[in-house]
């Protein structure tokens, strides 16, 4: 059981990092990145490919973070001209195309067969029984670092600028700041965090293939941010925990309701997940947390129109 809890907590931590990245890009910056899972996948693949080439895991992780940050920043260039909904579909399409590319370009990515035997950080230094615990510790440190960095960013002048850009890009331009530069940075930092989350995914599973990455990752991240309360990093941490608890906890349904077929139970489980999500949105309108520097009234007037 302990081993299962450790594994599940690692999953919570990775999802939390993804949620934090989205909270920066969409929660604070207002950029609807539906292609989140593509950047996450890219992080996993770059990290995985580098590792199996013999690059040390930590170096692969840094490499993945840098490359995803760069690519992500490039994608931000299209945001200038696109409104919210269009940005959503363009990033989603981009991610889907990326997945097609990874599925078919076998010479580079091993295609649908995936990459097996990815080495974890400190693999040789930790006894095998403690490997999962070590990875959990490593992941939790990563969560703490990302959380700390994003909190610092949220309270910094740049954080205010990001929020201002979300509220009214025209005003920011009028103040002589470049909206594009702000978005470029937001996408780059968010991309680096997604690269980190993807790399941790690769370390956790030690095997990656294209079917592991689907829009459901994006959906979970959005659920985490919306339930957590848009803009609140602490809220995201609480809501990811709740989310994974619901998703994983529902696997135990099988043990409590033994007289239904597994196909039916599997379906019931997912029905409950979907309905639970809607219910949570209805009964918990403001999520679990609040945005720093309470720009609440402003935010509310923004979201209600």
């Amino acid at each position, binding site marked *: 059981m302990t081993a*299962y809890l450790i594994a599940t907590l690692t999953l919570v931590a990775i999802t939390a990092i993804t949620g934090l990245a989205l909270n920066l890009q969409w929660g604070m910056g207002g950029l609807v990145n539906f292609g989140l899972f593509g950047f996450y996948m890219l992080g996993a693949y770059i990290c995985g490919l580098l590792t199996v080439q013999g690059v040390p895991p930590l170096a692969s992780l840094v490499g993945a973070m840098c490359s995803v940050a760069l690519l992500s920043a490039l994608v931000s260039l299209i945001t200038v001209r696109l409104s919210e909904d269009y940005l959503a579909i363009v990033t989603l399409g981009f991610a889907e195309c990326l997945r097609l590319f990874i599925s078919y370009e076998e010479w580079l990515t091993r295609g649908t067969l995936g990459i097996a035997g990815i080495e974890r950080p400190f693999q040789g230094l930790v006894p095998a029984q403690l490997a999962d615990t070590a990875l959990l510790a490593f992941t939790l440190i990563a969560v703490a670092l990302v959380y700390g960095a994003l909190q610092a960013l949220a309270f910094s002048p740049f954080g205010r600028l990001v929020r201002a850009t979300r509220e009214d890009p025209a005003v920011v331009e009028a103040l002589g700041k470049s909206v594009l530069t702000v978005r470029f940075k937001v996408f780059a930092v968010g991309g680096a965090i997604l690269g980190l989350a993807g790399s941790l995914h690769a370390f956790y599973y030690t095997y990656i293939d294209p079917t592991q990455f689907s829009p459901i990752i994006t959906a979970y991240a959005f659920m985490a941010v919306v339930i957590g309360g848009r803009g609140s990093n602490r809220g995201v941490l609480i809501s990811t925990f709740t989310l994974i608890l619901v998703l994983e906890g529902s696997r135990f349904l099988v043990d409590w309701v033994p007289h239904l077929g597994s196909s039916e139970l599997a379906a019931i489980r997912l029905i409950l997940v979907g309905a639970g999500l809607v219910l949570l949105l209805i009964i918990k309108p403001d999520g679990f947390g609040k945005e720093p520097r309470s720009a609440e009234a402003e935010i509310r007037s923004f979201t209600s129109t």
Partner: protein
Amino acid sequence: MPVIGPSRRVFVAASFLVASAFGLSNSSQANEEPIRIGILAPFTGTGGPYGKEIEEAARAAAVVINDAGGVLGRKLELVAADDESVPTSGVAAARKLIDVDKVVAISGVWSSAVVLAVKPIAVEKGVALTTVGSADEITQGENKGLVWRFQTNGKDWGAAFAKAMAKDGIKTASIMVLQTPFTLSTIEPFRKAFTEAGGTVLDQVAFNPNQPSYRVEVERIFSKEPDAVFVAAYVNELSAIAKETFRSGYDSTIYAYSNAADSNGKFVQNVGKEVAEGIVHTQHVPIAKSTAYSRYLKQVNKPEGTVATYGGQVFDQIVMLALAMEKAKSTNALDFGREFPGLVNADAPSIGEPAEALKAIREGKSFRYSGAASDFRFAPNGDQTNLTYGHFRIENGVSKLVGEIR
């Protein structure tokens, strides 16, 4: 303030989860308790159509074994979990099976990608992994005698298609392949064998799972009018493609896997007799002539002659696990896993009835188990060898065995 409410609720839920899990793990420690085997199957997602067949077969086998007195005096208990046909969910479900339910083996496992993702955990935790996944990579690498494939590997199956075509006098063929590890693994061997036998491959297209339509692919492949088209896909894609081919007015013969083109009779039921007419499929046999297979069909209330390939294979998995544990007198997978080859490779009389086989082990008699899905033997790496492939043709809605290929 807003934080207190939810976090308390989270805490309560978490402790509930932990408590229930401990309840389970404690109970599984007592010796008279049942031996647990995990069924990891695709109940939702791409593999959804096969999940039920897999679970039913496993349950049928467990009933047969338990009716024969169980294993080492204990009952077999199956715990099913949904892998959603996705590796990430598969890993989460497998971890729950291993760490919470304390299963000694994970069986079923349909998707090759799920197997590849679950394998490192199973090997690390010393849990047996029996699968119907077909990708060659599954049995490669250090598996500690834990990973056993109850399915032909892609290489042999691909070659079998080439042989079937040669027998049918096919000169030109094209390939439509679903982009998954298993389906792809049959393509190169097929090409090689088919060209060596003097055939010509005209064209090949790959397509993605869950495409809204296959019209483009059908148009491209069938418009060149090859004698045959090898459609390497599952029942959903094959159904759409077969219908599309028929109503587009093309006549090339479709060759497909039996688990797609028969799939328990569902394929014909889905596309109709007219569309299904003349489609050729292959699968390792005897299926139809085996004692174990008849036992399986009887147990799940299916008529004689039903071709349920995954079902037969999973039935064999559970029976073999039971026999191996009984023979090793251990529920530790590292011990009983090694017994697999000996149970089927022995040069001794064949037994197809699981109850008889169990009895034979208890009495120390020498025998070999002759499986439901095929009369297989095991290679040391975990692959089945020595398989015979059935060569079926659908005529008037029914699959007819027209020959055998070795």
